[in-house]
């Protein structure tokens, strides 16, 4: 064992570069897989910490004014109820934008249940009657800070109130803005009445704590029965809030998982290549070690143990990397304890175990084969082959001998050549797919209409709907506008409320991108996204019933659409459906479809200008923007894959140089100049690189369109979205790989020529 340990130490010192490459590859693969597991599992969830610290409520109810909330207190399962506070909708006005918010009245003494956690500034106090506290994620989104002066407009814009931000706070009542809207602002009761004196436009907000959180749905049903569904404006449960707070980005998680798994496979290939290559290069030494008395089992153990150490180092680095990157990638998590950004333990164990097993297998097989060979047979080993007809023809045709010999040398050892080509092709396939994803994201960003997004919304603000409609119609950049109302529906049995969209009318429905079926053409017809259909367990052609302000409405699903808003869960129908059923309907806003080529931001600011700031103009966020993180992740993955490919290439170089060393003086004696001899080495590595990356790029292009379509279809972004990587980007990648291989070959050819002939001419 001492002898084995000594050899491992000496060998790692001698081939530091290769050792670092192997450890780096393992670290990259492990980080990618851990991050994907975390994302798919929703690991980054600060909800628990916030809920406990703020003594959160399991259920939040928005009740109609005048509802008797006390009767809820006596319901079975309810352990505590917060004192009802008032809430109203308002618009927060800053110089450059208007944002819809919800004002919640709270007293200077924070409540027992659901107390906001102050993160900066001060809480509300009577000393500052115009002071407001903003929820942290809202403040971040609108760039508001403590000390800022804002204006709060009431719902119809008839009253504007100047206020000052005195503090920022976190809460477990509601998910993060803008995933959940509207944003929350806490105000003193007196201020709320100043902003919105009309009591009819306020609601009562009540928070419930229950004994058994698992029975939340049951309790909600009882509450709705108790107070009547017409009194219930909206319900939110702790499960909804927790889910919305989870940084669950399934698309990103899936991409990382896919790349991570393929990277693991490619890493295994690369490590097989490295170990076989090293066995080939060091066969004389390994044979001599056997002569010294190392048994075949000890040789296998030695090589495997060396790689096991490197793998362990790589895994530790990968675990640390994942820990560091998770919060870094997704920003500081408010209220999150370190535990909330850790990857679930079960997944970590699976990933670490799988990586260790794969790498050990990749090492053990070539190492075992090395041990099996008799020492002398090992010492005598050299590449076998003959000058093929192709090569002789090429030489006879006076092609440069360096090119011919170099190209031939690339494939003289079959197995290593196959491993090298595969080791380059597999990463190249994934890199090409990654470039395809990138191109698709660029497409979505440049052309959001392809995913069915209207980009600009315009609320009437202080105008009437008719005035707003006229202004909008007059704008030359607006191709069409559709009246939209967000209606909150209570789903019986599901015990939740969901925000539905009444957009356009049955005669003139909003032009959603329809994946199957058709748009709504009559009252009570509706379209839904795949995610919503999955959530309710229904298909196109079936029915969903909901209560809007106590009025039951039954929808028949006539089509499946693509829309990424609301986390991909959208139910849309004509505004005439609500009128037809007699359900209450808010004023709503206009959703604008811009002419092609018009920038949303420019159109929005012009609309504000021509309306004198009275139109409530907003921008709909583009998934292409939010997926900036996806781009960063793709970039990092491409680097890891490139590292894997480089490892394979360097191995091929080592083997090639060893073979080349035998022949260099012979070739020179035959009449090849030193330059020609070096060129042969460069050609050898370049040919291997060219074959490998070209095969990979071709396979990648074929696969990537299908793959991206499949993934985006699964996540409600629509089929037909996938775009293969552009020819230019693929060609550039191939060029980089081939030039890199040529440079590496040139550098090693240079050092090699300094060896003395006597040393080189081995048995």
């Amino acid at each position, binding site marked *: 064992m*001492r*002898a084995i340990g*000594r*050899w491992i130490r*000496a*060998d790692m*010192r*001698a*081939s530091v570069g290769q050792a670092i490459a192997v450890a780096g590859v393992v670290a990259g693969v492990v980080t990618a897989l851990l991050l994907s597991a975390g994302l798919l599992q929703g690991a980054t969830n600060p909800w628990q910490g916030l809920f406990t610290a703020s003594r959160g409520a399991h259920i939040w109810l928005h009740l109609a004014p005048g509802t008797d909330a006390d009767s809820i207190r006596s319901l079975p399962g309810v352990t505590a109820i917060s004192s009802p506070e008032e809430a109203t909708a308002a618009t927060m006005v800053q110089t450059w934008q208007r944002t819809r918010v919800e004002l919640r009245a709270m007293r200077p003494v924070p409540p027992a249940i659901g107390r906001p956690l102050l993160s900066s500034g001060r809480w509300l106090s009577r000393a500052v009657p115009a002071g407001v506290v903003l929820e942290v994620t809202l403040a971040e989104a609108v760039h508001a800070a403590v000390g800022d002066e804002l204006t709060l407009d009431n719902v119809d814009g008839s009253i504007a109130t100047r206020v000052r931000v005195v503090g920022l706070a976190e809460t477990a009542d509601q998910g993060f803005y803008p995933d959940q809207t509207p944003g929350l602002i806490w105000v003193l009761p007196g201020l709320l009445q100043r902003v919105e004196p009309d009591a009819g436009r306020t609601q009562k907000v009540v928070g419930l704590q229950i004994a058994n959180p698992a029975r939340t749905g049951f309790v909600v049903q009882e509450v709705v029965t108790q107070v009547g569904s017409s009194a219930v404006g909206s319900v939110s449960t702790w499960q909804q809030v927790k889910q919305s707070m989870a940084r669950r980005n399934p698309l990103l998680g899936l991409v990382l998982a896919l790349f991570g798994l393929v990277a693991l496979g490619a890493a295994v290939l690369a490590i097989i290549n490295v170990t076989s290559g090293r066995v080939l290069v060091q066969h*004389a*030494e390994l*044979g*001599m*070690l*056997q*002569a*010294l*008395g*190392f*048994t*075949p*089992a*000890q040789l296998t153990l030695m090589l495997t143990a060396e790689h096991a150490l490197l793998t362990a180092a790589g895994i530790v680095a990968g675990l640390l990397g994942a820990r560091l990157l998770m919060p870094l990638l997704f920003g500081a998590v408010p209220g999150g304890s370190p535990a909330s950004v850790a990857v679930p333990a079960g997944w970590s164990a699976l990933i670490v175990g799988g990586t260790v097993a794969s790498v050990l297998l990749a090492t053990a097989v070539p190492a075992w084969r090395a*041990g*099996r060979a*008799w*020492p*002398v*047979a090992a010492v005598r080993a050299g590449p076998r082959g003959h000058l093929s007809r192709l090569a002789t023809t090429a030489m006879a045709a006076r092609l440069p001998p360096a090119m011919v010999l170099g190209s031939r040398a690339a494939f003289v050892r079959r197995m290593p050549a196959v491993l090298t080509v595969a080791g380059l092709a597999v990463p190249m396939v994934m890199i090409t797919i990654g470039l395809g994803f990138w191109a698709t994201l660029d497409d979505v960003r440049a052309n959001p209409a392809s995913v069915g997004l209207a980009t600009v919304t315009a609320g009437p603000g202080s105008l009437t709907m008719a005035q707003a409609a006229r202004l909008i119609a007059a704008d030359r950049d607006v191709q069409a506008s559709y009246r939209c109302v967000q209606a909150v529906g209570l789903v019986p049995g599901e015990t939740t409320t969901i925000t539905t969209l009444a957009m356009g009318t049955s005669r003139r429905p909003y032009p959603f991108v329809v994946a199957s079926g058709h748009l709504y053409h009559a009252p009570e017809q509706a379209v839904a996204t795949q995610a919503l259909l999955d959530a309710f367990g229904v298909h196109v052609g079936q029915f969903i019933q909901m209560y809007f302000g106590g009025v039951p409405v039954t929808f028949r699903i006539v089509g499946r659409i693509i829309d990424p808003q609301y986390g991909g869960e959208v139910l849309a129908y004509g505004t005439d459906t609500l009128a037809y059923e007699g359900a209450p309907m808010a004023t709503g806003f206009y959703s604008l479809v811009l002419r092609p080529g018009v920038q949303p931001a420019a159109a929005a600011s012009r609309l504000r200008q021509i309306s004198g700031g009275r139109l409530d103009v907003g921008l709909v966020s583009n998934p292409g923007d939010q997926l900036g993180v996806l781009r960063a992740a793709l970039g990092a993955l491409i680097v890891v894959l490139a590292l894997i490919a480089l490892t394979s290439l360097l191995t091929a170089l080592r083997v090639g140089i060893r073979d080349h060393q035998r022949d260099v003086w012979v070739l020179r004696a035959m009449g090849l100049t030193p330059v020609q001899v070096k060129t042969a080495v460069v050609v050898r590595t370049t040919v291997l690189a060219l074959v490998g990356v070209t095969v990979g790029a071709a396979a990648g292009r074929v696969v990537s369109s299908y793959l991206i379509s499949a993934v985006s279809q699964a996540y409600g972004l629509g089929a037909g979205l996938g775009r293969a990587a552009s020819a230019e980007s693929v060609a550039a990648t191939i060029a980089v790989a081939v030039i890199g291989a040529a440079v590496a070959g040139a550098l090693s050819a240079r050092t090699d020529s300094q060896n003395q002939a*006597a*040393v080189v001419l*081995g*048995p």
Partner: protein
Amino acid sequence: MTNGADTLLLRTVGLSKIFRGDGVSVPALRGVDLALHPGEFAAVIGPSGSGKSTLLHMAGGLEPPTSGEIWLNGQRVDGLSQARWAKLRRRHIGFVFQFFNLVSNMTVADNVELAALMGGATRRQARHRREELLAELGLAGKADAAPARLSGGEQQRVALARAMANRPSLLLADEPTGNLDSAASQAVLRLLATAHADGQAILLVTHDARVASAADRVISLFDGTVIDDAPMVLPRLPASPETSAARPRVRAPLSDVLKLRG
């Protein structure tokens, strides 16, 4: 089977090796019988392709024979597995090759100590043995050098130190001077002679008659068979006219042997 074989260090009976590849069979050794006593220094000489290196490799278990028997210290070893052979080599057999075969990524000291550690020495014992050997071989100052920085002769001396680290019963040397200049060759041969004087048994393979003359006994191989096996007696200058009458038996050159065979 006891027939005086128990006193022999190495014995081969009808040892044969046939290399097969690409549908061609090449017999490298044809039924070689060999016997080496403890402490004996024998040289195997022959032209290229005569099978001498093959004989040496099989004697040390680096290559399996096609047929025949190999006995080492009274124990039959030709059928041993690679693992058993490896363990045998640790304590009982030392190898010196033509091309030094040092571990390139270890220092001179490490190369020698590695062999000692393999033989079961503790770290302290390995270090002592290494210091002792390197001093004997005049390489004490090169302990921390990398093999690549040494001359051919120095590397071969390190290989010799490594081979003798465990005081093996048998030292097998395959063309130890084949890659050295004459001065280095002389130095290595002197070292082998010294080791032999200390009781080391050596089986040396060479194509050079002058190198073979350092041994007690010369075995001639040609085309895979032993054609001569005789003690090497150096001609002594006659001390007096009376002793000159006793003519010493001198080895005939190889060419004469070939003529005899016709």
